[in-house]
């Protein structure tokens, strides 16, 4: 049987702070590398190649329907994009949608997670009911909400016109903020269950013993929530925020269906789609997709580093 304990001789040669792996660990590591190699090769083929191709294309003026006009333009496409107000407007829209939807989903999702965690009666039915929106295709959900907010046949105006800020003739897709509200409402409705699922996983990791101990010590429900539950599920919360933030930053379907970008409701993904697919500007569109990818990387880095998310502990490995 091989040992996992380093020998004294090895320890003597090892600089302070450096952990020396045992023979078994090294062998297991090598085996792991061999086992994962096929997956890595496939991933490189299916993800790295398109990414490198996009990076390459972004340096060209290249329109699909006029291939003879293709020419190397260096970083000019990036210059045009970064100096264009449309890019920054769309980025701002995307950030607003991301921040607002994730914040609201976090609160509602936590409430749903508590319900799913604590409910004693009809637990299966309740959990299913909460999760149904997440099972609906986003495009279908977007159409449903577009009809709901429609000035002609939607129910929102007729049901809620008693509210002072909603008139029976409210055109929800007629101006920027109303259209943004409708888009965010549909996004929140659709993805809050996902948030609640992630938070439910975190809630189930909170020890009942700790909660009972806090209760015995006289802690109120609010104190137990803020002093015991939330600190103990911080990793799960941060993972939920990370996943949803990255997802929300790439919002596309709802906007395409509900406004098609009208009323200045376009997102970064939609702008990229329009350049690459609709206008067939492969060069400019590729530059946008590279920038979108970098933005996603930056958001992931910020959330992981600033909030010190430990993905391993969120999976219960910590």
């Amino acid at each position, binding site marked *: 049987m091989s040992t996992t304990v380093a020998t004294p001789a090895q320890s003597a040669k090892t600089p302070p702070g450096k952990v020396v792996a045992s023979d078994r660990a090294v062998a297991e590591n090598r085996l792991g590398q061999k086992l994962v190699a096929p997956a890595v090769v496939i991933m490189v083929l299916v993800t790295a190649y398109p990414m490198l191709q996009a990076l390459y294309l972004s340096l060209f003026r290249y329109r699909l329907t006029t291939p003879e006009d293709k020419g190397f333009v260096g970083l000019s496409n990036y210059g*045009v994009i970064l100096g264009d107000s449309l890019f920054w407007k769309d980025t701002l829209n995307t950030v607003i949608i991301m921040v607002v939807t994730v914040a609201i989903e976090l609160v509602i999702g936590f409430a749903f997670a508590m319900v799913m965690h604590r409910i004693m009666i009809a637990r299966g039915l309740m959990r299913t009911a909460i999760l149904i929106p997440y099972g609906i295709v986003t495009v279908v959900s977007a159409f449903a909400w577009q009809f709901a907010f429609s000035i*002609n046949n939607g129910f929102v105006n007729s049901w809620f016109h008693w509210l002072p800020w909603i008139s029976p003739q409210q055109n929800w897709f*007629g*101006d920027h903020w109303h259209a943004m509200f409708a888009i965010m409402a549909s996004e929140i409705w659709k993805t809050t269950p996902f948030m609640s699922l992630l938070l439910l996983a975190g809630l189930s990791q909170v020890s009942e013993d700790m909660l009972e101990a806090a209760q015995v010590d006289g802690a109120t429900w609010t104190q137990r929530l803020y002093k015991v539950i939330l600190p103990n599920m911080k990793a799960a919360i941060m993972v939920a925020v990370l996943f949803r933030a990255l997802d929300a930053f790439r919002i596309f379907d709802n906007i395409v269906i509900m406004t098609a970008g*009208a009323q200045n409701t376009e997102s970064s993904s939609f702008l990229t789609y329009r350049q690459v697919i609709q206008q067939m500007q492969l060069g400019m569109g590729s530059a946008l997709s590279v920038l979108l990818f970098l933005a996603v990387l930056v958001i992931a880095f910020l959330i992981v580093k600033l909030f010190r998310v430990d993905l391993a502990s969120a999976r219960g490995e910590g």
Partner: protein
Amino acid sequence: MHVPRRSRGGYSSPGRSGSRRRVVGSFAALATAAGLLSACGGGGGTPTLIWYINPDTGGQAAIASRCTAASNGAYKIETQVLPQDAGQQRVQLARRLAAGDSSIDLMSIDPAFTAEFAAAKYVVPVPDDVKSKLPQAFKGAITASTWDGKEVVAPFWSNVQTLWYRKSFAQKAGLDMSQPVTWDQIIKAASDNGGTVGVQANKYEGYVVWINALVMGAGGNLVTDPGAGVDAKIDVNSQAGKDAASVIDALAHSKAAEPDLSVSNEGTVLAPFATPQGAFQVNWTFIYQNYASDKATLNDLGWAMYPETVQGTPSRPPYGGIGIGVSSTSKHTDLDWKAVECITSPDNQGQYAVDTGNMPSSAAGYSYGKLTSAYPASLLQLFQKSVEAAGPRPLSPYWSDISGAIQSTWHPAGSVSSSTPASSQTFIQQVLEGKKLL
């Protein structure tokens, strides 16, 4: 008892032997299937022509069946339905054609991207001998089918917009609809009498169709020399452009505007027109069939020439429709043109109009018996007069960019002012020069 056979290098299990037989069998089956497929594809069977069509109520599929039967086994036409939206049709076809997809033979092509496809050499120009066999199309239809002096698609059906109105409302408002009316007149009449004017002002191609008609109706053009591609002269910032902006501004800020003006399209204006507030709408030829089952609205339905932008200057109604293009990647070009002759025959144009409400592109098509009995004569005359006077959108290979730039600067209609044409012109030029994102 079965004993495994020992072979060189080890055991050869029955499983391995069986799998070898299966592999050999699979290759044999594949070879047979490939032979059969090649026979179907063009070796010995009837050649199949694939026709990519825009969605309709079955009119083009019916024509495909009739032409297949009429070919006496020379070819068989199969249809493939494209997306509903013209922009999506363009994207799907262009991506396939750019990739050299040889499965496309015939295409139903919208005028909005005819020039782009012709400039990219995705379509084969109509040969002279074929052109002489096609029915004589209306002037507007030929203009919309021509790129660089060559007819690149065969005109199939020609859509045109007219002014539709409620007779009772026009009478109440005291408008003489037997004479040409202006946009200002109908907006004022509707506004003063509690009515609405239905237009297409969502952020989409239909809105640019309206703007183009307004500009051409004022004697101008959105683009001069559209054949120059990115170097074309943009003429939005002209007196005609300002006249067009003035009409849009007036409607958007009047009581005659429908509440959903900023998201309105051909479909959304139908229902309000049938209500007591319904007064006027500009829309395509299919409207008559749409109200056929609503007798009250149909009996009160009137039609007139598209409104004038400037009083005294004849209007230039919007032109739409479909031309049939032959793909440059097709392997059956000769048969394709025979199929085009059949598809665009006067009888098929006429029957298609009866089936779908989309009118013929030729006077011969309008003579089709069932069509003349299905529509009032005055309406058919108006359609033909309108097509002759129609103002097609500029035939530029960069039309999608120009159209998108116009949509960005003129939408929503409520934001249009006298300064819109100037800002729009600058933006379009910057987009074409690659200096601005669209």
